[in-house]
Structures are given as C-alpha cells and as structure tokens.
C-alpha cells in the first residue's frame, strides 16, 4: 500500500534534499539506500515526513527572519515603546488548526504502515504437502554474537544470516542473556531481542548481496548490551532462490571434517579444546553455547568485525578479551586439555587451516 506514496518522491524539496542524501552512505548499511520492501516503506515515510517538516521549517524561518530584520532596535528606534498587543484569536486559531491538519495527514500512513509491518499472518503457513511456504529464522542474540536457526530446514548458523531474495522471510527473535536489538539498516528497521519473550517480524530482501562491495549487507546490534556492544555486528547474505536451496542442502550435509594434513591436525586440536562449545556441522538446532562454525570459511569477518584473514583469526583465538572485551570465549590456557598453556604458532596455523576449510559455499 505504500507504493501509492511513491508519488511523494516527486515532492519538490524533499526530492532535492534526498537526492543529495541518497548519494551519501554505503549501500550495504545505509537506510537511505533501501534494498528491501520494509526499508523502502520506511524510506518513503522518511521522505514524506521530511517534506512536511521542511515545509514547517520554511514557514517558521520566513516569519523569524522578517521579524528580526524589521523589528531590530536600530531600525525601530532606541526609545520606541511598541504597542503591547495582547494576542489574536484568529491567528491562534490558524496556528492551532494547521498543525492539527499536518498531524492528521502524517497519522494516516503512520498507522497503516505500522499495522502492515506487523503482519506476520503468513508465517509458518504450509502448502498441501506440509512444506512451509516461506523461510522462518529463529534469531537468538547472545553476548556478543548472533545465532540463526532454520527450524524447518534443520540447520543452524551464526554471525552470517543467509536468506532467499524476493520473498518475505519471517523471524522469531529473542535474547539469551541481556537485551539486544536486531538491525539491518538497508533492509528494515530494528526489532528488540528481549530476554522476556519472542518478537516476530518479517523482512524482504530485494537485492542479491553478491552485488555489494563485500558481498554482504551489514547488520548491527542496536541496544547497549555491554562493553563489546559496538562490535556485535553480523552480516547478511541474500541469495536467489536456487542458490539459497543449494546453500541449505550444503548446510544439511556439512560435517565439519577437515581436508589436508595441517587442517586435520587443526581438527584434532579443535576436538580437544573447542568442540565443547562450538559445533562444526550445519545440521542442528538452536541453543549453541558458542557460534556454530560450519560456515566459518565462507565468512566475511573474524569475530564479527575484523577482516577475514588467518592472521586476525590467530590473534582473536589467542586473546579473545583483547579483541572483544567482555565476551565469553575463554583464553586458550583455560580450554579443556590446555592446562594453562596458550596455543603455539604451529597450533594456531593448524587451527586456522582447519577453520578456514570449514565451508559450505564451495559445495554449492
């Protein structure tokens, strides 16, 4: 229904202003470059309300500037006592009535879109054979990472949400420890991840992320959740329907087995010290203690925000508190089987080889 408001994009001033604005920002994270229907609706509301408000500002500015110029003391005269006007019923009426009209004008699309964006009736609807007609993702926000489970598909991943394009994707959102908030600016506004219950909403992804600079949309935690709140980023990969199905199939079959000698060494180490918290197979359900690493090799970032290099991975494993203060990953020394000993350079190489080999995209 917001399509009808598209005409407002032609609204003179707003358009001029926004043309300037839309040039700004990175398309993978800017609300000014919407890449999904939800963000587009919100962008339209931004244009509409900005337009109305610019009108208000212009009216105020004209009166303001004229008053200052016309009635400054230099012009009026040092000793002049102006007439002590009490007020004007007519003016009072005008400047009460016009704002009321403006508010009503804004209230209608506000209420309509509020209901429209809350519409999750089609969530979990199944077709004749009992297969769900749409994708549902259970999102759990944790200190300081994101878990994305696909209960209908029997797979789970972390840190990078993978979704199909051009269809509504439904979300169940909750928090495991403290409150967080889920935000992908170019796809749609935020929803809080509460500790008290589940929030449901939908988003649509109208652009394939492969065309973007990093091949991903940027997602953020938008509610203060502790020291590393600023680093609680995630990424979104939007794939076309066929690619998405291929990804799901690859996830369901992923085993977490290493290939190559060094990687196998790494796997042994991993199974001794890391497996208690990190799963490496994409098949599974929600509730992981630490991020599922089945897609680690496909990821865009280390620890959610560092460039995806082996070097950064080794730094992150060796000193987790240094790179994400307050996170729950133990120092290597306190891991099972380490007895106080940090990972040696060779051990880190092995782990890196193993983890970078964990990929499902190669199997798609």
């Amino acid at each position: 229904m917001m399509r009808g408001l598209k005409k407002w994009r032609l609204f003179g001033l707003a358009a001029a202003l926004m043309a300037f604005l839309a040039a700004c920002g990175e398309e993978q994270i800017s609300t000014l470059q919407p890449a999904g229907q939800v963000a587009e609706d919100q962008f339209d509301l931004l244009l509409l309300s900005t337009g109305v408000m610019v009108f208000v500002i212009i009216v105020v500015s004209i009166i303001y500037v004229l008053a200052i110029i016309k009635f400054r003391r230099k012009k009026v005269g040092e000793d002049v006592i102006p007439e002590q006007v009490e007020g004007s019923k007519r003016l009072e009426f005008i400047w009460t009535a016009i704002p009321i009209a403006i508010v009503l004008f804004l209230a209608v699309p506000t209420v309509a879109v509020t209901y429209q964006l809350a519409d999750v009736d089609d969530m979990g609807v199944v077709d004749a054979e009992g297969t769900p007609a749409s994708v549902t993702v259970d999102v759990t926000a944790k200190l300081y990472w994101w878990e994305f489970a696909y209960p209908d598909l029997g797979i789970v991943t972390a840190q990078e949400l993978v979704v199909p394009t051009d269809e509504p994707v439904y979300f169940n959102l909750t928090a495991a420890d403290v409150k967080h908030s889920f935000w992908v600016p170019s796809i749609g506004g935020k929803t809080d991840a509460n500790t008290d219950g589940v929030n449901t909403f939908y988003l649509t992804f109208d652009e394939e992320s492969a065309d973007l600079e990093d091949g991903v949309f940027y997602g953020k935690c938008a509610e203060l959740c502790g020291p590393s709140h600023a680093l609680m980023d995630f990424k979104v990969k939007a794939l076309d329907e066929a690619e998405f199905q291929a990804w799901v199939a690859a996830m369901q079959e992923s085993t977490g087995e290493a290939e190559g000698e060094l990687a196998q060494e790494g796997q042994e180490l991993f199974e001794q010290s890391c497996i208690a918290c990190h799963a490496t197979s994409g098949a599974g359900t929600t509730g992981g203690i630490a991020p599922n690493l089945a897609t680690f090799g496909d990821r865009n970032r280390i620890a959610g925000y560092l460039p995806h290099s082996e070097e950064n991975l080794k730094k992150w494993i060796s000193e987790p508190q240094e790179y994400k203060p307050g996170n729950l990953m133990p120092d290597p020394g306190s891991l099972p089987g380490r007895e106080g000993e940090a990972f040696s350079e060779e051990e880190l190489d092995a782990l890196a080889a193993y983890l970078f080999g964990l990929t499902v995209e190669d199997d798609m």
Partner: protein
Amino acid sequence: MSSTAQAQKKGFGATLWDYLTTVDHKKIAILYLVSGGFFFVVGGIEAMLIRIQLAVPANDFVSAGVYNQIMTMHGTTMIFLAAMPLLFAFMNAVVPLQIGARDVAFPFLNSLGFWLFFFGGVFLNLSWFLGGAPDAGWTSYASLAIASGGHGVDFYALGLQISGAGTLIAGINFLVTIINMRAPGMTYMRMPMFTWTTFIASALILFAFPPLTVGLFFLILDRMFFANFFAVEMGGNTIIWEHLFWIFGHPEVYILVLPAFGIFSEIFAIFSRKRLFGYSALVFATILIGFYGFMVWAHHMFTTGLGATANAIFAVATMAIAVPTGVKIFNWLLTIWGGNISFSTPMLYALGFIPSFVAGGVTGVMQAVAPLDYQLHDSYFIVAHFHYVIVGGVVLALLGGLHLYWPKMFGTMLSEKLGKITFALFFFGFHATFFIQHFLGLLGMPRRVYTFVGDQGWDLYNLISSVGAAFMALGVITLVINIIMTSVKNERVGNDPWEDGRTLEWAIPSPPPFYNFKQTPLVRGLDTYWIEKMEGNPEGMTYAEPIGDIHMPNNSIIPFIMSAGLFVAAFGALYFIDGDKAWPLPVLALGLLITLGSMAARSLKDDLGYHIHKEDLLKEGGQPGGH
C-alpha cells in the same frame, strides 16, 4: 544592605556555615547554581572524552568498558545533576520574587531538597573512585543493569534515589509556594510565564518521579536484596523497567524544557519591549503539554514489541504534542513581531533557541512515525534529536537565563562582549556537533558504540562532530572567564539593569535584601512592574500593606545532617551485597539513625522563626524598596 555584602564581611568559616545552614531561597539558588554548574562541567568533560574517542574509527583513547561508564555518566549527570539543578537555581532565585513572596512555602524543605540532590550527586560520582562508574546507560535497561558487574549500577540506583527525593521535595515546595504565597492581586492569569512553567514542571515532578523511585527500588532490591522483579528465569519481567523508566522519562523531558520555555518567554518579552503575544494561549499550551506528557511514554519503546495497536496509539498521541508546542513557537515569533528587538546576550540565546528547537521538534515528529522510528531508534539520529531538544532547548535557556538573571542574583553584570563570544562559539559548536549526527544515524550508525569500524561511510561525519564539540567547550571556557572577570570587577548594578524588566523581580534591588520585599506588593496586572513604570511610578510598586514586622525562618543545619545520613546509609546498602564484610549493615543502620534522629530532633523542637522589626526596616532603607 545586600546579603552578599554582608557575607563578604564575614570570614570564610562563617560564610561556609551560613551556606550550610541557609534556608533563604536566594542563597539556595546560588548553591544550586554552583553545584549544578560543577556537574555541568563534569558532564561536559565526559562529553569531550566521548567525542575524542569517536573522532576517528577504531580509536583506542579509552577502552570499551570505560567508554560505557563515561557515556552512562554523561547522560545521568547532565540530566539529573546539571540540567535540573540549574533550572532549580533559577526557579529559586526568581519565582518567589516574581510572585511577590518573601520566601518559598517551606524554607527548611528547600534546603533539604538541595542537600539531598547534592549528596546524591556526590555519591553517584564517587563511583569513579570506588571501583567504576555505572555502565548500563542513563536508561539502565534492566537485563543489562542486573548483569552489570561491580558496583557501578548500585551507585546509579542509590545516588539517583537520594537526589530524586530532593527533586520531589523541591517540586512540592514550588507547587505550594505558587499556590499559597502569591502577593495580593497576583491571580493565576497574571503570573509571569516562568512562574507558570515552574508550576507545571513541578506538578510533572510530583507525578513522574514516583515511578522512577519505584523502578530504582526494584533495581536495588533485585541487585542487593534477592528480589526477582527483573529476573526472567524467576518469573520476572524486564519490560516493567522500560515502562517505569519512560513513564518517568518522557515527562522528565518536559520537566526540563517547560522551565526553559519560561525563561525564553521572559527574555522575548523583555528584549522586544513587548508583552507576550497570546499569554493565555501560552499558559494553556503549557498545561496541555504537561498533561500529554504522561500519555506518550511508549514512543521510546516502539521497537520493544508492544504490538501494532499500542505502537499506533502512542504514535498518534505523540504527534498530537506537536500542536501545543507549535502554538508556543508561533506565539514567541509574534511576540518579537512588532517589538523593538535588542540583541543582548540573553536575547541571542532566545533567538538561537527558535531554529534549534524547531529542528529538534520536527525530528521528534519524524520519530513519532512508528515504522520510521524502527530505523531511527537507538541510532545516532535519536542522539542528534534529543541533543537538539536538550541543548537547543534547555542548555540555551540555562545560558541565556544565566546572563539574564546574573545581575539579579549577584548584583553585577556579565560582560556583554564575552557573552556574545560565548554564544557564537557555543551555538556554532552545537550545530556542528549534532546536525551531522542525524545523517550518521540514517547511514546506519547505532548509538552507544565505543568505537566504529572505518569505511562504513561515517568517518568524516564523526570527525566533524568532534570538532564541533571542541567549539562548545571553548564557549564554556569563555563563559567561565567572563564570570571570573565580572566577579573581580564587581561593578554594582541597580534594580532593573536590563532597563526593560517587566515583572516584580526587577522592581527590587539586585541582589534583593534577604527579606525580599519590605512591603508586600499589590499586583495590578500581567507584567505589573511594567505597568507601574509606564504610569511613571518611581517606586515601581504599589504596596498591599504598610511597613511592618517581617517574619523570617531560622537557619538550620539539620537538612545537611539528614542528607549526610542517607549518604552514609547508601554506602552500607551498596556494600551489603558483597557479603564478605562486617561493616555494611552497621553503617546502613548508623546512616538511617542519623537521618531519623535529626528528623526527630527537628520535630521535637518548636521552630518559630524570628521577626525583623519595623524600626530596623525603616532605619535600614530610607525609602521603601530602595537601596
């Protein structure tokens, strides 16, 4: 003889004792001004640290944990320990004079309110030296506040509880003062706008602070005394905190901004030499804003998941507030329209306020559009918005009010030249800092981040914002220089230093004698002093009574001791949870005993005050009202 002149003759010890025990609203105003000013500087330094940290991406000027403490304390300090006390300073200094009263209704409670605020603020800030400041944001959302380690959040809850009690007392005091202490002829519809806005803001305090008190108690009980209000696994619910906090928090915005409107109303009228346009509409709009203020709190919770119906209702209710606010803006514009505008320093602040506040207001309406707010909420857009409201509205009013009322409070005139430089630096810095932050929010930058990764389109805007902040700091430094120079020069001024004063406070000496009015004035209309001046009355007042004995309240140290008792008790409560020390419980008991004991002492003694005798008044003045 002026009261400060008297004070200057005393030794330092005697002056200190005088201020510790004073119940004179004018001295309490100075206490609020000095301590509020101190906390304003502290909060400002915290702001500068924030902007230094965020000037460039991936900065490591402060660590993540420390940043969260700075950010939390910046908000908490500015709202509770700077903005509100500074407004109380002007309310105390001006409102009793504006209504022709000799003091507030409860001078003793006035002093108690101040000392509670003071000790609460000191307690809160001591957290820096005792293991770390609170770090869950000034909103201290429950799940994070419960999870936060150390004692920071305990300092927050207990400190705000103590200073909040002081605020509540101050609110009741102003309400009763305005209801009962108005001079003859000072009907409600003749009250100056600043008195009106103080009146409504005080009513908001009375009804908005109890939910905060209860919320803070829940937090204290959960963190320290095994309660489960917010413990989800025990059946608790963290959203209760969000409701309680914002049922307080939204009216709090109006508690701050209505008195600011009051100050600007006075400035516009004085420096346009013109009566406020549509006075009764302004009064009505103030009442309406205060009333609406309680019905829109959930607009801070659009993303919480309250459901489409709740969001839609609160969205429309919020937009409705824009109407009375708009009415006010147009009334001010029409006040200067047709006036005779003098660009004095206070007027510059008032004129600067209009575009700034309009900008803050329209972004407020944009955020009332609930679906749009899903994008704007908790991004830098909202940071920009509320700084436009709080700095563009409240802080500009505080600075303008400071220049306007400085002569009335201290009897000297701040330098106009330095005042204008302060304004220029601060005003430019303010817009440079915050205008750009709207766009940071739209470009996807969340608020409350201790750092950000580069190349997300935010680097330049953050740098601009930080440079702007430096200009604001320069402005404040200029102001401090101005205050020092003015105090050193000490050139005394007369009753009506701005020459166009309209209300009663300008009819008496600057600073006023400790009993304010030798004879209670008879108020003959709105802007009564202006009326008398226009009629050529050299005394500036018509009197409602002949010179007679004046009854005055006694000074008392008890408010100080009572507040100090709570300060001590708070330490006991705070360390009680550790369970590894023996002293917290006795300290808690001792503190409460000090407080209750001094209350009992107060109650058991008859405190009847004293009289200034007619003969002394006649001897002192020569002619009434004069110097």
